């Protein structure tokens, strides 16, 4: 009680000092730590009855995408219907400049095929991203109409003709409370675009006079230009010539007129084929852009095969683990091998390129879920000269994976008795991943059921995890759990971690029906729509969304959800 009181006071003082809304929120472990009328959620303590916003998934197949519906505090009763109305539209026109100048009065419509992409965020629920795209094969008089979910978007239009640079427009808001935004994309005329020409070579031999350009022979590459600051595409993806010896490596790429105002552009050379044994390399080209460019991809050598074995801490083979290699290769490009799987002996064989003598490549092992072995990264030095002369394979040292930690806990019902058959799901807490995280993807979610004593055990990699506890007729409970690799006083790795007992709260049931305009019929039930109830509240000064509960409507659009109550 003292702890709760101290926490509440401290939180109130902090809120007063910062002038932020007086919503006391902080990380918590149990409901008892939270103030009166509050519960402990993964993101911190909070009143489950305030600041609720519902995301209603709609009927994507009918063009009715997600809506965010705010609920006034204290008005969410036992029954609540949601009327979604018709699809939210973004309309507009594709146009093309008639001259090299940017002149809205001197354009023609562009009726060639265009791919329109929209990437946006919910305006009411922080952290919810919404991507959409639609292809317009022959937009009549350049007009387009695309259904999207509610949110604030950046739209980009990509003509199928690669010589026409993409165009983009930001801050487009789609909301049921606003008129459908009308957006104009103006593609430049041929003379208004910026053209970069040159040759992509494997290597320039500076010892020769004149310098000798060594062409790329076995690899087909593409080039694309980006804004160095915003990383927005300035051009489409252009093929580098792989034709005759005299033209091999030649390229001409067309950039939008915005490139004229930039101090530099990034040119990214990428292999065209996914399984090509070639690196990706980025070149910074400073303005004024030269008439012709020579880009050196680097002599990345010939690919070779690396063979190795993956074991766990007990010395057992790690089966069906993903293995890949990545890093900077000879010549300065970045390379990522294909992903291979270990066999029944934990053995893998992966093709890679060589690295510079003073560097190494990173070997990444991702064991399957529920394996005892953890995700492991090791630096490996490779010398192709030491490869087996017969098989051509290069053996690397056996990789011994770290051990995943066994995270244990107990779940109890609101009356304090053990809660069996509760679904315990662990999801990597993406928001906690640091920028530039070494893992490009979240770790696999893991799920188990509690046993008859309410106990559970999950084997997890070191990371911050969001635990969700799903029980029948009770609201969702959640906790954030940080799993760390630690050693005990004798220096031995700690292999188990126990989290405080999770007490399920009592809930209240909310039922209702979802309707919308489907096939021009207003008030139609929206079948199988997803609903997610969030509480939006500041956490550490930043608006965050706490998931209170989720459900899926039935075929008649009816839903029932159990939300936390106190």
């Amino acid at each position, binding site marked *: 009680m003292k702890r709760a009181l101290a926490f509440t006071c401290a939180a109130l003082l902090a809120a007063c000092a910062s002038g932020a809304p007086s919503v006391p929120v902080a990380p918590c472990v149990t409901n008892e730590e939270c103030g009166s009328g509050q519960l402990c959620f993964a993101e911190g303590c909070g009143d489950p009855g305030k600041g609720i916003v519902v995301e209603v998934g709609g009927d994507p197949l009918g063009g009715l995408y997600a809506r965010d519906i705010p609920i006034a505090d204290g008005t969410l009763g036992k029954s609540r219907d949601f009327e979604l109305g018709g699809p939210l539209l973004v309309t507009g026109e594709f146009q093309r400049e008639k001259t090299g100048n940017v002149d809205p009065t001197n354009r023609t419509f562009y009726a060639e095929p265009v791919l329109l992409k929209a990437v946006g965020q919910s305006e009411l629920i922080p952290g919810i991203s919404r991507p959409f795209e639609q292809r317009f094969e022959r937009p009549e008089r350049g007009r387009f109409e695309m259904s999207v979910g509610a949110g604030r978007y950046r739209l980009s239009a990509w003509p199928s003709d690669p010589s026409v640079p993409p165009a983009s427009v930001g801050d487009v808001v789609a909301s049921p409370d606003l008129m459908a935004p009308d957006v104009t994309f103006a593609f430049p005329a041929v003379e208004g675009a910026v053209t970069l020409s040159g040759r992509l070579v494997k290597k320039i031999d500076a010892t020769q006079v004149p310098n000798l350009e060594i062409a790329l022979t076995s690899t087909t590459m593409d080039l694309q230009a980006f804004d160095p600051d915003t990383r927005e595409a300035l051009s489409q993806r252009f093929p580098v010539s792989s034709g005759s010896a005299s033209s091999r490596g030649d390229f001409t790429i067309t950039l939008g007129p915005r490139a004229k105002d930039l101090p530099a552009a990034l040119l990214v050379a990428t292999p065209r084929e996914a399984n090509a044994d070639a690196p990706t390399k980025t070149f910074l080209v400073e303005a004024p852009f030269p008439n012709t460019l020579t880009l050196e991809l680097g002599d990345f050598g010939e690919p070779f095969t690396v063979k190795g074995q993956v074991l766990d801490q007990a010395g057992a083979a790690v089966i069906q683990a993903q293995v890949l290699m990545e890093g900077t290769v000879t010549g300065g490009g970045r390379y990522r091998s294909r*992903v291979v799987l270990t066999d029944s002996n934990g053995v893998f064989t992966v093709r890679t390129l060589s690295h510079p003598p003073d560097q190494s490549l990173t070997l990444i092992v991702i064991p*399957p879920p529920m394996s005892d072995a953890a995700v492991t990264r090791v630096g490996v030095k490779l010398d192709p000269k030491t490869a087996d002369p017969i098989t051509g394979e290069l053996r690397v040292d056996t990789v011994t994976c770290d051990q995943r930690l066994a995270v244990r806990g107990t779940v109890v019902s609101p009356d304090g008795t053990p809660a069996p058959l509760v679904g315990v799901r662990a999801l990597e807490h993406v928001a906690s991943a640091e920028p530039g995280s070494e893992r490009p993807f*979240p770790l696999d979610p893991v*799920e*188990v059921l509690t046993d008859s004593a309410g106990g559970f055990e999950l084997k997890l990699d070191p990371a911050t995890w969001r635990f969700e506890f799903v029980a029948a007729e009770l609201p969702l409970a959640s906790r954030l759990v940080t799993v760390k690799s630690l050693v005990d006083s004798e220096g031995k790795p700690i292999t188990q971690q126990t989290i405080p007992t999770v007490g399920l709260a009592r809930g209240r049931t909310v039922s209702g029906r979802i309707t919308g305009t489907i096939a021009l019929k207003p008030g139609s039930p929206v079948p199988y729509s997803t609903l997610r109830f969030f509480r939006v509240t500041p956490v550490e000064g930043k608006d965050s969304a706490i998931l209170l509960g989720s459900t899926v409507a039935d075929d008649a659009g009816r839903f029932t959800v159990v939300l936390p109550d106190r």
Partner: protein
Amino acid sequence: MARLLLCGAVALLEGACLIPQDDTVLPDLPPKKNSPLRVLAPTAKPAQRRTTVQVGTPGPTCLRPEFSMTVLDEDTGDPIRSQWYVDPTATYEQTPTNPVFTGAVIFGGTSTTRQVTAPNAMLTFLASLVDGKEHLVEAWVTDSEFTPDAPPTSVFRDQRVLPDGTEVPDTAYTDFNVWVVKVEPCP
């Protein structure tokens, strides 16, 4: 006369009630048949079947790819298993360029709807497909178990034991969802 007839009829009916009845107890109900599971297409993510995903370091202009869908199965005790195919062959045979990925088993507790998510392995593999081409992603789910090295339509069938002790194969179900995916690097 009418009263006499009525008395006679009542006497006959009463007699019928006194005829010994067959006291054989009704047999046990047969165990419930497995219910089909179904992918709820409106819940699929990405929401659009033809879609572009970005791979690399996530940021404001680069969203983490997510492939998931909700599966409806009235049999709450049935674990849901999923297999994810990238550019599957006609026979769904696994090759280095046509891999198969197994998703985590979803127990779901007492809920009839279960969310199935693509395994990390598939997302990692997609990252190697930044080639400007479209790729097919098929997600299959079953309320049984997939047969190893066989098309996803081939699943194990549990036995149901009838009250008379005979075993009959139960029905197992599969369903699937498809996306056409283009993979782009994060800018």
